[in-house]
């Protein structure tokens, strides 16, 4: 492990009351990344947003199984990038089937994944073991 690396594994109940806690952890990590040359305030907001949206999404698609009532979150950083993985144990969804929000239609929903893609550099969603993993990477170097 690099001397500047961080690896954080978090398990939280799939309830919206934990969104703020998870978002703030992301903000704090972003503020610690001295090697990031860009605006830290913006980075902190973006990491907070990605975590909040991803976790809210995981809650939305959660299973009803009482044994799977949590969300797994991992946040890792190295010299080059910050990676967030949010794993849910629900039925999942097709990330490519989500349309870009149309401002003329004014839908109340459907901006979460769009925002994640807008603020992160690389976003993927795949099945891993028993869960669905939303993986989001942010480059820390130019």
């Amino acid at each position, binding site marked *: 492990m690099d001397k500047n690396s961080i690896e954080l594994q978090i398990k939280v109940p799939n309830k*919206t*009351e934990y*969104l*703020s806690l998870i*978002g703030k952890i992301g903000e704090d990590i972003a503020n610690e990344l001295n090697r990031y040359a860009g605006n830290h*305030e*913006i980075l902190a*907001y973006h990491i*907070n*947003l990605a975590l*909040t*949206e991803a976790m*809210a999404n995981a*809650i939305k698609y959660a299973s009803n199984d009482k044994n799977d009532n949590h969300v797994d979150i991992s946040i890792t950083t190295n010299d080059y990038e910050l990676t967030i993985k949010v794993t849910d144990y629900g039925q999942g969804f097709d990330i490519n089937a989500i349309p870009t*929000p149309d*401002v003329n239609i*004014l*839908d*109340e*929903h*459907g*901006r*979460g994944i*769009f*925002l994640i893609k*807008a*603020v992160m550099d690389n976003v993927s969603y795949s099945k891993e073991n028993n869960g669905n993993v939303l993986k989001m990477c942010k480059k820390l170097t130019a």
Partner: protein
Amino acid sequence: MNLVKENRGNVVIIKIQEERVDAHNSDGLKLEIQKAFENGDKNLLVNLESVHFIDSSGLGALVSGFKNATSHNGVLKLSSMQSQVKSMFELTRLHRVFEIFDSEADAIASFK
């Protein structure tokens, strides 16, 4: 959702008293706006000065409010956004949908 409601002439001001508007509390905001229009209020201003973080569900609650305004022949305006919050409206192009004012006073003056 913690908020304060205030009447100023023919304008009802909803001041959000939360640092975050996310999927945990956005329904409260949506309901409060809905209630105001159902009660017959026509001019609604949401003051976002205290809000430092908004996510897609917070934006969705305001979009719902905008649609509610239209269906009740009312108007919903927004004011006093922090720059990061405003950037979320720009990213989703919702700044073209809402009338957004720098200050509460400017917004109130615009209703007259």
